[in-house]
């Protein structure tokens, strides 16, 4: 921030200085003056953006400008901008005219720090933050495309802003390359109309360049996208390739094609919000991982979230100062699991009680709610939490929850974040909808992810662990490092009723048989005697046990046979 400001201040000085000198020494050093003047003018254009009126207009819409977003996201004074002088290179449609060029093009890029830790950032500029003359130009007014669109759908864009030019893409690629080289995360603040039509294929090439970097960086450095305005067409695939996509409620949209195209192709009437708003993507499609109230809330949460992540795959999970004693007993857990095994309880309560200071950053809290995933800390160290949610669909595994869980587990594994799994799962969800949807294939993803993960894995079975789902949920058999059962655990192939119907088919005294089965299997002993759980623990001691285990497991090392890459059932 200060760096940028200082630059601005210097700019102001230069202006006074340069103008003051102009009359006196113009003839002597016209060359130098002209360069200085141009530098100053360019910087001013880049920094001042659209001016107060446009900025106010942006604020009135509840949105911040691209640079304000960066200044709020990063520590004050830490932003170092790059490529402020880059301009687009398009010569067609009169784009080469000076009035249609402006320094930095439609994106601000650079590096900075969040709570002292390095991060690379790009923030796309929409029209409102751009030079007024550019926006008022006639060619930036509504462009209606014939169907089918020649470029990735840009039906409802009305302004030039934020659109991706070759130069724009090049700027982003540059910081991504550097982020990969030094090993620091990339955060994209997306607010882009899509490809810049005037540039044609160069713009498309720009997208592909970014996609390639997204893929190269995947698993090397954490990549986060925060969608802060409408993103359509090609602009949506970069966020999709990053590790986490967050959205701002009411102001951000993500879609391949806008409502107009949808109407013309499928004859569906749909609003932008319904088609690709934050609610749609956080509850129905699972494209976005979380939505926030407004720009400020989103950026503050992003800072909070960033603290959980290691800088790269070479770094261990960060350990932040912690005031919560690692050996704290949690007496309220002793009574949390209801006496009746059919009664629901909230797994989030268990997570809150166990983790440091009840702080839990949940990922996808409104999508596939039968599984809970998110980040927390144990004794200061970041951990990934996976838990079945008995409150929703009894906590069963289905297509969506398997995919949600699998992607999260793989992220944690890629970035050395230990996994803690709380199990209360009655099995996979049966039914034609699930089978036709490919529950076998999708369920296998979660199984694959847990089996593949080499980070420390601690599992706590709080109640049910039935059937194949028991195996999947980070069981001992998938190389769980420490597997605990609470006294309320029931580890079996299925519930007593179903089991008895099979074992004692046609038997008269069903109730007695059921009681026998419950006595035999509806407790943690069958698994414990075989060593499938390492210990049966008092729930109140769960936190202390996990913290202690994680300290030991911090030095865990696993060698896998060489391979080009694994082949997860996608």
């Amino acid at each position, binding site marked *: 921030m200060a760096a940028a*400001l*200082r630059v*601005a*201040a210097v700019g*102001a*000085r230069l202006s*006074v*200085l340069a*103008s*003051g*000198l*102009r009359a006196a020494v113009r003839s002597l050093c016209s060359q130098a003056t002209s360069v200085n003047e141009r530098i100053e003018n360019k910087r001013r254009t880049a920094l*001042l953006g659209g001016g107060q009126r446009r*900025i106010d207009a942006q604020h009135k819409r509840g949105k911040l400008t691209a*640079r*304000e977003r960066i*200044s*709020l996201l990063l*520590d*004050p*004074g830490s932003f170092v901008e790059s490529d402020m002088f880059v301009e687009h290179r398009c010569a067609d449609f009169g784009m080469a005219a000076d009035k249609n060029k402006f320094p930095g093009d439609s994106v601000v890029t650079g590096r900075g*720090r969040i*709570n*002292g*830790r*390095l991060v690379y950032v790009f923030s796309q500029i929409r029209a409102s933050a751009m030079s007024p003359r550019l926006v008022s130009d006639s060619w930036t007014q509504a462009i209606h495309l014939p169907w089918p669109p020649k470029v990735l759908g840009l039906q409802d864009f009305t302004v030039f802003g934020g659109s991706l030019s070759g130069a724009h893409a090049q700027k982003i690629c540059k910081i991504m390359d550097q982020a990969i080289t030094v*090993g620091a995360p990339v955060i994209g603040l997306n607010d882009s109309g899509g490809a810049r039509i005037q540039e044609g294929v160069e713009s498309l090439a720009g997208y592909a360049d970014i996609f390639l970097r997204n893929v190269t960086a995947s698993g090397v450095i954490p990549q986060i996208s925060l969608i802060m305005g409408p993103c359509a067409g090609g602009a949506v695939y970069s966020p999709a390739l990053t590790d986490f996509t967050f959205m701002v409620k009411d102001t951000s949209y993500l879609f391949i094609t806008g409502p107009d195209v949808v109407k013309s192709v499928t004859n569906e009437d749909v609003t932008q919000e319904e088609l690709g708003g934050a609610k749609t993507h956080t509850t129905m499609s699972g494209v976005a991982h979380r939505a*926030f*109230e407004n720009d*400020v*809330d989103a950026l*503050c*949460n992003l*800072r*909070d*979230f960033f*603290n959980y992540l290691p*800088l*790269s795959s*070479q*770094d*261990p999970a960060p350990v*932040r*100062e912690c*005031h919560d*004693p690692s*050996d704290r007993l*949690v*007496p*309220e857990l*002793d*009574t*949390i699991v209801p006496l009746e095994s059919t009664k629901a309880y909230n797994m989030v309560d268990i997570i809150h*009680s166990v983790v440091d*200071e009840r702080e839990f950053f949940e990922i996808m809290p409104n999508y596939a709610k039968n599984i809970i995933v998110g980040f927390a800390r144990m004794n*200061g160290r970041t951990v990934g939490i996976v838990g079945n949610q008995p409150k929703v669909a009894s906590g069963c595994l289905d297509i969506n929850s398997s995919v949600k869980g699998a992607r999260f587990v793989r992220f944690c594994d890629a970035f050395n974040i230990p996994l803690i799994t709380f199990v209360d799962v009655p099995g996979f969800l049966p039914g034609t909808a699930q089978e036709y949807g490919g529950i076998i294939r999708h369920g296998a993803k979660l199984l694959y992810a847990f089996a593949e993960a080499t980070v420390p894995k601690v599992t706590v079975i709080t109640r049910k662990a039935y059937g194949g789902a028991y195996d999947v949920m980070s069981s001992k058999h998938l190389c769980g490092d420490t597997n605990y059962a609470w006294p309320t655990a029931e580890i079996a192939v299925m519930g007593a009723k179903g089991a008895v119907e099979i074992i004692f088919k046609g038997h008269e005294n069903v109730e007695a048989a059921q009681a026998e089965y419950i006595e035999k299997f509806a407790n943690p002993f069958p698994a414990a005697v075989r060593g499938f759980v390492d210990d049966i*623990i*008092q729930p*109140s001691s769960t936190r202390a*046990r996990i913290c202690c285990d994680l300290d030991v497991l911090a030095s865990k090392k696993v060698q896998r046979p060489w391979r080009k890459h694994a082949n997860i059932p996608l």
Partner: protein
Amino acid sequence: MAGFWVGTAPLVAAGRRGRWPPQQLMLSAALRTLKHVLYYSRQCLMVSRNLGSVGYDPNEKTFDKILVANRGEIACRVIRTCKKMGIKTVAIHSDVDASSVHVKMADEAVCVGPAPTSKSYLNMDAIMEAIKKTRAQAVHPGYGFLSENKEFARCLAAEDVVFIGPDTHAIQAMGDKIESKLLAKKAEVNTIPGFDGVVKDAEEAVRIAREIDGVLLSLPRLECNGTISAHCNLCLPGSSDSPASASLVAGITGYPVMIKASAGGGGKGMRIAWDDEETRDGFRLSSQEAASSFGDDRLLIEKFIDNPRHIEIQVLGDKHGNALWLNERECSIQRRNQKVVEEAPSIFLDAETRRAMGEQAVALARAVKYSSAGTVEFLVDSKKNFYFLEMNTRLQVEHPVTECITGLDLVQEMIRVAKGYPLRHKQADIRINGWAVECRVYAEDPYKSFGLPSIGRLSQYQEPLHLPGVRVDSGIQPGSDISIYYDPMISKLITYGSDRTEALKRMADALDNYVIRGVTHNIALLREVIINSRFVKGDISTKFLSDVYPDGFKGHMLTKSEKNQLLAIASSLFVAFQLRAQHFQENSRMPVIKPDIANWELSVKLHDKVHTVVASNNGSVFSVEVDGSKLNVTSTWNLASPLLSVSVDGTQRTVQCLSREAGGNMSIQFLGTVATSSLSVEICLFWTFQVAEGQEICVIEAMKMQNSMTAGKTGTVKSVHCQAGDTVGEGDLLVELE
């Protein structure tokens, strides 16, 4: 376990309430046996501190095993004394209470039915079965449920099981309002003027209501308590349009009158009538209500004492004709006829009135051969006239305040007396030592008619037992459910001190230090009551709440300085969280470069008003400028603790941060009331130009020479008043810094 209990109590009280050492945690086998100790320890602490003054004589054999026919805090309370006396205990419970505290504390537990009380705690057959099964020799009924059920007492007698309470005869006599009033009159106890018999119909009710003063005048013992003078006041002539004339009419006719069901209780079947018409309506409605609620439509009428205090005398009798009065309890703070705050002694009574009340209470106890702990309730008017209301033949909810000031363990005395031992104390031994206050902490929303029950799970729960002079009687623990089936009382919080001021100060501290999360609670209301100026002065009546909060309770109204304190605390807390977020274990590949922020400029929105706050810190001390006034905030800033003890310019405050969001929203419980504030770092917009000290701001050309003007100090460019090429003169303002 009992032996272990007695033996470890002092040790635990000496401060072993903390966490277990880590190595013990790792022994899960050990945990099973140790798991109860954690909450025993808090009970212990209390027992040793409060009830330890009364010795227990191990040679005085009472019972081997007692069944406690109750749940919650009172069951725990009884079990605690039983453990002290070396008596084994049996708890009864409904199925939902299977893992509750009283069950864990007792040596044995029997499930007596499903959750609804009528099928469990009131299920006499199941309880009798449990008694037989466990061979308990005696039953302590606690309060409520079967405590005043003569049928139950009779059943126990038939099985030769001792009922720890008064005789069936006393329960019956005092349980009926008409009979108890007649008995009280016979024992020469002041009673409320009224008609001592069953009212037959509405017209008779009106006749009686008009004549009540006449009845009053025929009452015995009027001379000794000044009732006449009180009512003479009512007869003073006044001008017809003044309020005095209303009382004049009331004085002549006997209005207002109270119509109440003979078998009633808890406010049911009770009506106040101010004239003939209301009397007729009241009679009709009350008799219907009484018939449906109690199956007994007998009504009685008595003078309604306006604005009275509710003061009760604790009595203790034995089977040898001895009876003591253990001073009074002031229970005037009520809502919907339920007590909220109680204290002992009463600030209102003088020694003479106290003795008069005590002697009358003992006289009544003797008259019914009362042989247990009981309570004689009185209404006391502003002239210190007192009238017998009723006698409760059980241990009262608010008994701890009496225990605190007298040093007696009432449950222990009840058990001794039930066994047939004579009282160990003489009336002269009973003194008033200090002052005790009790607040009933309920799971209810005080903002809705002073308390709308709420339910939920106590996700976090911590009693303020680390403070001096605090006793907490509770039957819950972290993780307990406050369910719809039972009374929503969380606990009774009792503080005591050498005088009332100290007891109240301790109560305020205790309420601030009480951590209850997961259910709505009434701490805000309790804290407001005990600091209310009328309450502090002792100017209270049973109408206190509706008088002080005519529009309902709205929470604590912050004064200007309190608001500044809150803003300063919230801002400091926010900055403390921000600073902590930068503290990483330094072993990373890439160094962490902490931002250097000298001043945190914050805007804080509190109650829809935005305040500008500038905070800076030096170690654990934050200096905060709130709307222009400077405050220093000091704390240990333990951000994991639910309680945060801070000092704001020397004023000690305990606040609780209930929730905190990354976006800046924070809920803080301050002075009992929860305030939600939203904080944000001022967005430094990028077009504010900052200049550093010594930096060149502009260049002035004079005498063909260029002179640069540099900034005298670091600041932000507020405005520029000149343009390049302007001609400037001496004294002109060029650039403004701030």
